[in-house]
């Protein structure tokens, strides 16, 4: 009834902070006893483009092996892209000098899925949270302490927690610590890789709400990696759906959820669990499993599992079509 309200055009006025353009990551497959020989390439990420805008959240959804985590790793400079560019505020980071790289490092932080492995068990909370500041900022001890105390308060913990070790915290609290650490250098972008999926159900909402509150307070953008569609709908302004290393559909959240167009997106939404027993779901269960990214199918990568497959799908790579402002899909149906 209020389609005009969600007009994505109003949102596009926000400045583009971080941009990926044609990003690819191919891992070599080697064989051989003594001298290893490359026999193939796993195309984990194969030409992905998206934009993260200031103060907004972009969600990347997909099943395991679709390349969403590898994409995140490239943005975090944990993996070197095989091809394509990453631009931060218009500056290409591949060409950046060491000073600019350092600036990038402290502008883009991360929170990972597993709260048990993302905090060094041998460091006190104080040192854990301060580590990014120690490396990147030139602060006095006093300033550092004050900042840690403030961060702890901001994420809903108390300053006396600073002296404890991670094992004294529960999963949800650890995730709060990880968030505090990520915020410590006041980054512009935080990559959230499945930040709530390892937590108990009753804790998830706490963390999601906390993240949204902090977004306003710190004016930070999020890149949210998730497999749970409802989480993405709740938290994101923009959504990209990935399948086998490629983005198959991309658009503003409401538009995309209301008018899901790519067969894969629709299959994902139908496969997702309903929030009420009376909700009738379209019967559209995909057969088979995700093919190996080592030898992805020709043409459209989704065609072997697609219910609407046409002859040309196995031959031609689909073009990108813009269905509505900002809502693009790559499928021969459109």
């Amino acid at each position: 009834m209020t389609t005009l309200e969600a007009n994505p055009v109003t949102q596009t006025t926000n400045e583009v902070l971080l941009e990926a353009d044609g990003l690819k990551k191919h891992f070599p497959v080697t064989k051989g006893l003594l001298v290893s020989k490359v026999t193939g390439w796993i195309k984990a990420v194969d030409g992905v483009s998206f934009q993260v805008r200031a103060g907004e959240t972009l969600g990347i959804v997909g099943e395991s092996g679709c390349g969403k985590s590898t994409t995140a790793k490239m943005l975090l400079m944990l993996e070197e892209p095989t091809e394509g560019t990453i631009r931060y505020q218009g500056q290409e980071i591949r060409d950046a000098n060491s000073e600019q790289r350092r600036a990038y490092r402290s502008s883009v932080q991360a929170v990972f899925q597993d709260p048990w492995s993302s905090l060094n068990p041998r460091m006190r909370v104080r040192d854990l949270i301060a580590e990014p500041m120690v490396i990147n900022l030139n602060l006095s001890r006093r300033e550092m302490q004050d900042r840690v105390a403030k961060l702890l308060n901001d994420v809903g913990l108390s300053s006396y927690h600073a002296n404890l070790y991670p094992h004294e915290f529960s999963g949800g609290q650890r995730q709060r610590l990880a968030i505090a650490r990520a915020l410590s250098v006041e980054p512009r972008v935080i990559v959230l890789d499945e930040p709530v999926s390892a937590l108990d159900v009753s804790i998830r909402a706490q963390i999601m709400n906390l993240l949204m509150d902090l977004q306003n307070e710190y004016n930070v953008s999020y890149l949210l990696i998730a497999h749970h569609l409802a989480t993405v709908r709740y938290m994101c302004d923009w959504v990209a759906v990935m399948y086998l290393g490629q983005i198959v559909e991309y658009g503003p959240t409401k538009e995309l959820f209301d008018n899901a167009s790519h067969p894969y997106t629709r299959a994902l939404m139908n496969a997702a669990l309903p929030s009420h027993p009376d909700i009738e779901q379209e019967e559209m269960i995909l057969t088979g499993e995700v093919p190996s990214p080592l030898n992805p199918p020709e043409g459209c990568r989704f065609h072997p599992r697609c219910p609407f497959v046409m002859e040309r799908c196995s031959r031609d790579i689909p073009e990108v079509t813009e269905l509505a402002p900002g809502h693009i899909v790559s499928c021969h149906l459109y």
Partner: protein
Amino acid sequence: MTTSTTENTAPVVLEVDGLKTYFETRWGTVKAVDGVSFNLRRGETLGIVGESGSGKSVTMLSLMRLIPEPPGRIVDGQILLEGQDLVQMNDKEMSEIRGSQIALIIQDPMTSLNPVFSIGNQVGEAIKIHQDIPKRTVVQQVLNVLRKVNIPAAETRVRDYPHQMSGGMRQRVVGAIGISCEPIVLIADEPTTSLDVTIQAQYLKLLKELQEASNIGLIFITHDFGIVAKMCDRVAVMYAGRIVEMGDVRDIFNHPSHPYTEALLASVPKLEEDVDRLYSIEGQPPTLHDLPTGCPFAPRCQYVMDKCLETYPLQFDVTDSHYAACWRLE
């Protein structure tokens, strides 16, 4: 609301009454399951929902009599499977029942199959144990069961080993083991948590079909209300070792009567609509060795009253088939 009226006439196959399973630990007695009662009818799906530490998995292990003893022990209660009390059975009698009348699908497909035996061997084992039939028939049955769970090319895959299969396929094999002897009751312990969304959908559909085909009583252990909405007829919500609310699935979703159920339902984001802000339950799930007196949910409850802190609430009926343990219903 004209729900929960029609079915429910099928015979009760499993009746659990006042089940208590305690563990002796260094920190004292942990009452992992503390007085749980429910029943299950033929062809019905019962969901047991809870977070980690709620006692749902210990309930499942107790039903199978697979509690490691020591430190665990079923201290009280009855588990009547078609009238026979499983709690009173000795090991040998229990072995005969396990796998043939009451079967289990466990959570992690990566670790629940023995890496050194072939798929066919592992599926056929239960058949060999429980049915006195010649070897050739066993092989035939294994193939049948594998086809039932939609394993493509079952004839060749029986010789495969678990590491040669994907997670989804392995979980199908675990499912095949579960139904191989056509049990009366099948317990599925979070069988899809480690599967991808589309694979999960396939698996749930398969389970539903299998259940309907052989009219199995299915107990679904999960932490996810989405699965309950999709699969279950009735739900039991567990918190700190007890059932805090139980009823028909629609009753629970439409009229959650325990504040915990209500809060949980409100804290889950929805795929179908925009939610401005989720309700968030403050605090942590309690640790079982250090439970407060009174209602264990009281410290996190938005409606907490003085009485809640003093006495554990009684069960109050909301409808004939729906009750909750909360003083607000008094």
